[in-house]
């Protein structure tokens, strides 16, 4: 399948809310193409009879007990907020579809 890498980069950049310049887009398209080429070569391997690996950590979860610990003081919570309105984080409004 022929992939239009320029279009792909535009799409992913939009999803990630990244603004890329023309030069950056060109570079990303080249790198993306290289990464996918590597993945394609991996796919050539004979995997018949090999269990699919969904996970990099094979041991099952060590879980924590359901216990409450102290949360962060409000001053610290909002310390790095881009904007603050009373005790809320203030952010630009995102309209549906954007």
């Amino acid at each position, binding site marked *: 399948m022929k992939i239009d890498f320029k279009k792909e980069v535009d799409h992913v950049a939009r*999803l990630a809310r990244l603004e890329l310049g023309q030069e950056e887009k060109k570079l990303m398209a080249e790198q993306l193409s290289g990464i996918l080429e590597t993945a394609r070569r991996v796919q050539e391997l004979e995997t018949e009879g090999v269990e699919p690996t*969904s996970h990099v950590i094979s041991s099952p*979860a060590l879980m*924590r007990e359901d*216990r409450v610990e102290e949360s962060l003081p409000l001053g610290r919570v909002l310390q790095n907020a881009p904007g603050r309105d009373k*005790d809320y984080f203030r952010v630009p409004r995102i309209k549906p579809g954007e």
Partner: protein
Amino acid sequence: MQYEVVIGLEVHVELHTESKLFCSCPNRFVPEPNVNTCPGCLGYPGVMPQMNSEAVKKALTASLALNCEVARLSYFDRKNYFYPDIPRGYQISQFHVPIGSNGSLIIEDDQGTEKKVRIGRVHMEEDAGKLVHSPYGDISMVDYNRSGVPLVEIVTEPDLRSPGEARRYLEQLKSILQYAGVSDCKMEEGSLRCDANISLRPAGSEKLGSKTELKNMNSFKAVEKSLEHEIKRQRAILESGEEVISQTLRWEEDKGETLVMRSKLEAADYRCFTDPELPLIALSEEEIEAARSALPEMAPARAERFVKDYNLPDYDARVLTASRSLADYFESCLKTYDNPKTVSNWIMGDFAAQLNSAGIEADSCAFSPEDLAELLVMIDEGSISGKIAKDVLLKAFASGKPPRQVVEEEGLLQISDQTELEMIIDRVIAENPDSVANYRGGKTKALGHLVGQVMKETKGKANPQLVNELLARALS
């Protein structure tokens, strides 16, 4: 043309745990924003998620209570999207392998016949923060208290055929999850939320029509109403020969209509992949069987027990056990007032009416089971009449004061003082010569009118039996 309605529901339920899914912040609904947060649920990079064992247990219980097959091995994925309610840039959710699948639940269809609704999947995920959009300008305010709260999402197959079936499914689901202790399922606090997918197709057709998704319904009633509205809207479109556009609609309760939120053409692209920071969730046969045998008594079994142990009519037992909190309330009340039928009458009548108008559950009202028991004792001991008791219940329910205090403060104690009543009776006899003449002339019914007058004079506080006796004696 005859159309068949096809509905599927997606329900998000907050799991009832002490702490959040991946951090130790409290999982509690509070009005103050951002107080239950930490670097983990605020999405700071570099914080390792620590899975809450109780949340996994509750999700397992939910799966079993809904007759699901349980995945021996499941895991979490990252659902990537950029929106301020998810500060990390991805939501941790079970996309590829849900903990429960192929479950079912039994409801009654519109004809009253039992019908099985298939549940496609039950999966765990974390909740997002809450956005408050400022009415002025292009600003949103974010509260992350809810961020990271453990959820299960329960998705039906498109098996529901009417808005009524959808409502009954939700009622049944809520009852099961409450009984199983998985969630308190309070829609008003957002611990149960429901989205609905709906389409119409020509009767007899196998192929599904294009569907719309409805959001923002705040009660079971709203789900039913929004679906009824959407059926009308889609039918009108189809009958005019046009096609239904697949889109997400927002239910506007005040206007009773739906508004377009977004078109499905620009469908989200979440690029889900396995979360490499979280290990596999492995459940052993022993754990699954232990959870299965720990499933508590559900509504039908409890109703049966109520009939058997308390000698209640079938109807009472079904009403009382429809919600776990109401059934618990009933049984708590019996501990101090051992007359099941009387307690049942009061709970199903005046108490339930108060709950309904306040829009709350029995476990969150200030009028405790002990208060109800006290009220009933006061009727029995003759301190108040049954009629006054209804008034006391109303006032105690609203104020949170014990009924005995309400009676004292409002001066509602029943008048059983003979001398005081005789004075009032003498006055009533003097003022109603016609009724007195009628009674003496053999019309015994006239006594009722005179009793009524005495009750009116005493604002309902007279002991009715005593008034009857004294009046009859005074007139003989």
